[in-house]
């Protein structure tokens, strides 16, 4: 069968992906630059298409807690927001990580801090990959760099979130959310029936029919038991770090110098690699697709084998560089280059920085 092809905005693509992936509920609150997600969903009337529920909540605090409820009942629930709204959801995310509930969030990142700007940014890396709320936890974080990936990562994120019973974050930005590209759509996946939920998620609170009651909670007052809860969660994270790392390499086979960049920055860095190659510089790009788990081992092995210097390019004041430096472990120079507050670096500027700060030094 011929694939269905459509020209779509990133924000629309993920909304369509949600319907087709058999998502049960979207609970959200408007914020620029991602409001198209809920607008597209309400326009599509997914209640008629698949039975998917869409509800505009009174705040991001309410939407993430609606997600908690639906996820606790074994349903596929998601939300989307942009940076200030995601900050408001941190409480709910911490509770969900503690209660081991799966869900998917989309953050169409804008510049901060505070109300900041509505222009694209990558300054929420720490918040997404290091936990964001209180307590020891991580969000499984995927970074799309195209509209197609906005579409594809929705289903992958749900699969990971459900496999590990942990919230997953799609960390996008204002540029990828707003830009239009062609998207290959896949076929409709039916929503899980109640019988399937009970089979797939025996822990879910669906009503205690033919079983003992199920409790969804992140509370454990006995410190010895709470430590065990944490150990169990940490064990999951070690497994995620072992099995779920995803990345893409561009011209890395013979690379002597390496750019590490995700999302919009990675698109710019592809151009930088071309410019460098034209000048005879053996530059490659490693694009982390999962930011948590971060491709530590891959970067470390490239540094071990061939790479003489690394630049981490990010639309932030320097966040991912901390993980890059951990991977490089002081063996070769590693520096951050970035623009922020809604500004986007140019491929030429990135190359200039590489030449002066890494190759010249």
């Amino acid at each position, binding site marked *: 069968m011929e694939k269905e092809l459509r020209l779509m905005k990133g924000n629309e693509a993920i909304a369509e992906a949600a319907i087709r992936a058999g998502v*049960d*509920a979207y*609970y959200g609150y408007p914020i620029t630059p991602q409001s198209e997600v809920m607008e597209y969903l309400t326009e599509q009337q997914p209640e008629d298409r698949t039975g998917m*529920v869409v*509800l505009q*909540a*009174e*705040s991001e*605090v*309410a*939407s993430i*807690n*609606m*997600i*908690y*409820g*639906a*996820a*606790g*009942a074994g*349903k596929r*629930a998601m939300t989307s927001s942009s940076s200030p709204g995601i900050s408001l959801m941190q*409480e*709910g995310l911490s*509770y969900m990580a503690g*209660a081991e509930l799966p869900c998917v969030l989309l953050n169409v990142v804008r510049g901060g801090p505070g109300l900041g700007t509505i222009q694209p940014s990558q300054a929420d890396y720490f918040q997404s990959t290091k936990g964001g709320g209180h307590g020891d936890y991580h969000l499984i974080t995927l970074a799309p760099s195209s509209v197609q990936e906005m579409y594809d990562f929705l289903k992958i994120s749900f699969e990971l979130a459900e496999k590990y019973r942990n919230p997953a974050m799609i960390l996008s930005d204002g540029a990828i959310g707003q830009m239009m590209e062609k998207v290959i759509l896949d076929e409709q996946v039916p929503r899980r029936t*109640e019988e399937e939920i009970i089979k797939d998620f025996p822990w879910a*609170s*669906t*009503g*205690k*029919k033919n079983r003992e*009651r*199920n*409790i*969804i*909670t*992140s*509370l454990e007052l006995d410190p010895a038991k709470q430590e065990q809860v944490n150990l169990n969660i940490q064990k999951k994270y070690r497994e995620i770090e072992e099995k779920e790392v995803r990345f893409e390499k561009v011209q890395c086979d013979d690379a002597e110098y390496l750019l590490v960049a995700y999302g919009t920055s990675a698109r710019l860095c592809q151009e930088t690699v071309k410019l460098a190659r034209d000048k005879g510089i053996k530059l490659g790009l490693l694009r982390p697709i999962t930011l948590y788990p971060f491709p530590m081992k891959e970067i470390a092995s490239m540094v071990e084998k061939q790479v003489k210097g690394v630049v981490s390019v990010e639309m932030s004041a320097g966040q991912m560089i901390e993980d890059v430096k951990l991977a490089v472990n002081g063996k070769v120079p590693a520096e951050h280059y970035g623009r922020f507050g809604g500004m986007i670096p140019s491929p030429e500027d990135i190359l200039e920085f590489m030449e002066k700060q890494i190759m010249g030094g």
Partner: protein
Amino acid sequence: MAEVKEDIKKPENLVYKKTDLMTDKTLSYCPGCGHGVIHRMTMEVLEEMGLEEETIGIAPVGCSVLAYEFMNVDMQQAAHGRAPALATGIKRVFPEKTVFTYQGDGDLAAIGTAETIHACNRGENITIIFVNNGIYGMTGGQMAPTTLEGMKSSTTPYGRDTKKMGHPLKMTELVATLPGTCYVTRQAVHKPGAVRKTKKAIKKALEYQKAEKGTSFVEVVSNCSSGWKMTPVQANKWMEENMFPFYPLGDIKKPEK
């Protein structure tokens, strides 16, 4: 120890049986506290209505944070004030299930005000059980949104001064003004007659939920002998003399026939 006569165990001599929907776990509440009775009434109604296999309850943050330890149905524990959002999230994807929240005054009327008002305003088909004892019990007796004027608490040691600390909030009257609520009532559990009325009110509330009439809201004015620094008997007397005049008992809103 006195010998238990075998006769007493015969079914015809049975005058009271604990509902199977209360677990055997010892309640964590202080002596004289109303929570235990309100828990039991809620569970008895669910059992009598045969709803235990399709019910999902939401426990709050506060003294009743451990409600899920005692209520023998599927339960979710919410962040402080967020129970109505959880209940919304569940009910929208499982409209045929019975969903209730069990919340205290700090949870429902302070930190969760927005979630409460908007769930009620959307007319979510859920039942909210609101236990109002005018104080934060779990954290050690601080002022609640419902603390009466002049009432002492650990953060109003000289009494609540409404000029500085605002006025006690009548959340139940407030939600009764919203078109989404169908049944709004205020009850108590300090005397057997009041307990029976509370049980009836909870039953009505759940019946309206099953009939998809909108949000049903049952406030239960209760005591906090530890927080109020009184004996349970004194606390109930003080509640009758001071809480009931400000929070009068009875139905505030009923569905139109």
